[in-house]
């Protein structure tokens, strides 16, 4: 019980190991329970035993996730509270917070938002590169119009794995590392509102990713990341990994959303009104609302699908009274806000970094924030533009076409802000600036291809073709991932005190930028010429374009792994020391020392101003005259 610090600590030190043990035990117990007693509940037995038991797999995954968290020590506190145990002492809290320092705290449950940010960064990069592998194999397979290295089954497994894993990780690719690390610092808080919850949202991520990857041992799933029923009801056990993974991710998105909103709106330094909040924090706030309000729809849909696969409920089966449209509606009601969960933090991050390189205040800050809020609000009104050809509600198409095209107004504002900021600026072309420029370039293409998809008649020709695929890769990879790379280069000196080889990175940037555009411009052409997504075989006349896309894609993979190589070599192995404030930024995150004190501030700032006063050169936080440090910090 958490009230006995010594025991709790000794266990906590081995959190990760105990977690894995707990996961294994949980899976075995869950599978036994699920395939035994529960599977005959309501008299329905799942699929024949030759396929294994769906209830068993589902319950096994659920209990293994629970066991993992239990081993990590997440339940000590709540269970202790159930029995009215004393609250942890400040000493316990400080320990749990990782005050002792050391590398160990990165491998156990810690409540320090900075540690959690680093954990997010590492885990997300790892999974993103695993997902990228899937893309490499898909493109290699598509070098030829007929199956070559993979058969139809393996190809669909790869497509499902790549897409779903990427969606999982992209959901928190920027909020996770940079949101968790910098939001509390930027708002002058010592910690998140609910630090244990924050740790939970992170530690839900590895189980989700591993559960999804484990699908290869269960035969994979053939539905891609959209998991359309009734095909999902028909799939082998691999589908259950998709469902449980998405359930955990949905939970993680919702919880981190709640936590972020609470932190930003109730834990801000009293001297910081919303009007002076950094723009990145604004983007996190908008995103968190999207996550907290949209993810439950996904959870509802996943619950229905789990009921369908275990107890053979007929939510999505017309002959049984259900409808495939039900899944499509619920899924996309989550799915469309989800894509802005990817992109809005990228907007914020880019607008946060831009002034440091333009050496100018952010131009049109208010409209920029308004743009992000507008995107957030509109994103709840557009989901049926994914269903223009599905035959659902034709009379509503004009509305969804209108609302979808409206989104280009708030996104256009972001470009206005960027132009205004760079206008007659003393721009410095630091390496992050290159990635920022690429972000705007790629996202511009992504936005303009979106116009063709939002317009119903043209969508009838382009829907579900490679045009769509190229479109969302331009927004998610070209937008979010490029912003992520910019953020890594920009913030690593603060997060790790180390830096990368900026010169080498410039070559790496041009390699990534050119190969990325080469790949997806080819795929735009392929799509316009009528190649459907997710096909292993395609018409022979499309081979040249597909080959160019594949070759560019393989080069892209190489240049991405170059990024990883530089990162590992310079930061982990060579440990090149970084300047204290290499970009001469005025943000408060650069005013606190590196490494950041355990509770962020040895002294609390007495007054705050905007973090981009590059005209006056006044930094964001004014720590006032020297005062004695706060106790406990």
């Amino acid at each position, binding site marked *: 019980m958490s009230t006995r610090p010594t025991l709790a600590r000794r266990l906590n030190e081995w959190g990760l190991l105990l977690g894995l043990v707990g996961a294994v035990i949980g899976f075995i117990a869950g599978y036994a329970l699920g395939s035994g007693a529960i599977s005959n509940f309501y008299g329905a037995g799942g699929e024949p035993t030759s396929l294994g038991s769906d209830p068993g797999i589902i319950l096994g995954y659920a209990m293994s996730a629970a066991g993992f968290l239990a081993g990590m020590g997440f339940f000590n506190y709540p269970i202790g509270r159930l029995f009215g145990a004393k609250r942890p002492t400040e000493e316990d809290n400080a320990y749990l917070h990782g005050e002792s320092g050391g590398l160990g705290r990165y491998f156990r449950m810690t409540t320090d938002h900075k540690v959690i940010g680093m954990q997010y960064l590492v885990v997300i990069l790892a999974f993103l590169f695993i997902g990228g592998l899937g893309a490499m194999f898909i493109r290699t397979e598509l070098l030829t119009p007929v199956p070559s290295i993979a058969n*139809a089954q393996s190809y*669909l497994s790869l497509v499902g794995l790549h897409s779903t894993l990427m969606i999982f990780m992209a959901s928190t690719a920027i909020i996770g590392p940079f949101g968790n690390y910098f939001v509390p610092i930027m708002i002058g808080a010592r910690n998140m509102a609910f630090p244990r919850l924050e740790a939970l949202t992170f530690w839900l991520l590895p189980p989700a990713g591993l559960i999804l990857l484990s699908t290869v041992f269960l035969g994979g799933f053939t*539905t891609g990341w*959209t998991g*359309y029923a*009734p*095909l999902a009801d*028909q799939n082998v056990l691999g589908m259950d990994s998709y469902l449980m993974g998405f359930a955990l991710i949905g939970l993680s998105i919702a919880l981190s959303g709640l936590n972020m909103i609470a932190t930003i709106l109730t834990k801000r330094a009293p001297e910081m009104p919303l009007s002076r909040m950094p723009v990145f924090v604004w983007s996190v706030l908008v995103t968190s609302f999207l996550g907290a309000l949209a993810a439950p729809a996904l959870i509802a849909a996943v619950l229905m699908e789990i009921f369908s696969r275990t107890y053979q409920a*007929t939510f999505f*089966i017309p*002959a*049984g009274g259900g409808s*495939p*449209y039900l899944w499509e509606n619920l899924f996309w009601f989550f799915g469309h806000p989800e894509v802005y969960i990817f992109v809005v933090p990228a907007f914020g991050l880019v607008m946060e970094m831009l002034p440091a390189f333009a050496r*100018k*205040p*952010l131009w049109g800050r208010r*409209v920029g924030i308004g743009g992000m809020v507008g995107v957030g609000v509109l994103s709840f009104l557009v989901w049926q533009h994914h269903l223009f*050809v*599905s*035959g*659902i509600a*034709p009379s509503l198409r*004009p509305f969804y*076409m209108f609302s979808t095209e*409206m989104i*280009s*107004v708030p996104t*256009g*504002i972001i*470009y*206005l802000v960027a*132009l205004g900021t*760079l*206008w*007659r*600026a*003393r*721009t*410095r072309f630091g390496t992050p600036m290159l990635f920022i420029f690429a972000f*705007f*370039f790629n996202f511009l293409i992504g936005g*303009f291809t979106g*116009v*063709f998809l939002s*317009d*119903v*008649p043209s969508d*009838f*020709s382009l829907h*579900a*073709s490679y045009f769509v695929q190229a479109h969302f890769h331009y927004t998610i990879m070209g937008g979010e991932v490029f912003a992520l790379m910019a953020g890594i280069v920009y913030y690593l000196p603060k997060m790790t005190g180390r830096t990368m080889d900026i010169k080498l990175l410039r070559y790496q940037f041009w390699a990534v930028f050119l190969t990325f555009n080469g790949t997806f411009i080819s795929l735009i052409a392929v799509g*316009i010429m*009528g190649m*459907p997504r*997710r096909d*292993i*075989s395609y*018409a022979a006349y499309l081979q040249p374009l597909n080959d160019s896309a594949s070759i560019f894609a393989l080069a892209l993979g190489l240049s991405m792994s170059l990024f990883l190589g530089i990162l590992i070599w310079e930061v982990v192995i060579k440990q090149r020391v970084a300047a204290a404030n290499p970009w001469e930024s005025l943000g408060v995150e650069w005013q606190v020392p590196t490494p950041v004190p355990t509770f962020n501030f040895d002294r609390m700032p007495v007054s705050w101003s905007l973090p981009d006063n590059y*005209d006056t050169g006044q930094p964001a936080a004014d720590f006032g005259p020297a005062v004695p440090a706060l106790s406990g910090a």
Partner: protein
Amino acid sequence: MRNRATAIRVVVIVWIVAAVGGDVGLALGPIPPGQASDLASSESLVILVLSVIAWPVFSGVLAALFFTLVVNRLAPPTAEVSADALRGNTRVQTTWIATTLVIVLSLAVYGTVELAIDQPGAGISTTSASLPMPASQDQPLEVQVIAQQWWFTYRYPTYGGIETAQLVLPVNQKIEFHITSLDVIHSFWFFALGVKADAVPLNDNVVTAIPTQVGTYRVQCSELCGLWHGNMTDDTAMVVSTSDFATWIQQQTTLDAPVMKYLPPYSHIYAGSNLPQPGVYAP
């Protein structure tokens, strides 16, 4: 500073050239899906119009980005802060928002009008009542597309409800596709005709199109439907002259003769014979 003025001129001229040239190129070049049917032509027209509107804006934003990034920046030595360091400019902002709003609204209105003119995928009717078959050729020719894992088959109610595995259509005849599925969601994509509509079980998704060019085309499934989704294609779909169509129908009728007595009566929702009822999992 005159060199800045000239730079502005250069960029603007380059942009105008690129925009006009690009639009002209778009207008000249063939725009998929082409002109093989009225529906396809309208879709290529919409794509053309959108591109012609989008390209100048796109290149304009790029030009502005390039201009502000590369040309229109102050040399680092300039210590003093220029007047442009203001935090905003209401007039510019309103102009920008108004412009994008106008463009977007015009696009939306245009799309809606196009949608109203030719109702692509006029939507679904879940009625299971089988309609009387069209009597004469001047009515639209009804063709039912039956998607099943993993092949499309077609029924021609006008011709005794024969079922075929190959899609053959008469040219210059209004075709009314009734797309349905026997199992999971498929999507019937006749690229050249600009026809794409999901096939949903117990649903009737209707698309009308008038093929205008004789030829052999490809139809394929464009919604992931399981193992053989990538192979659920057919390169032998044909649009033929009316006389050839009549002969083809004759051949198919004789070919289908042995099976006709087994085919169910024509219905807009082709549930299939042993579609599992309540206990849907066990056939």
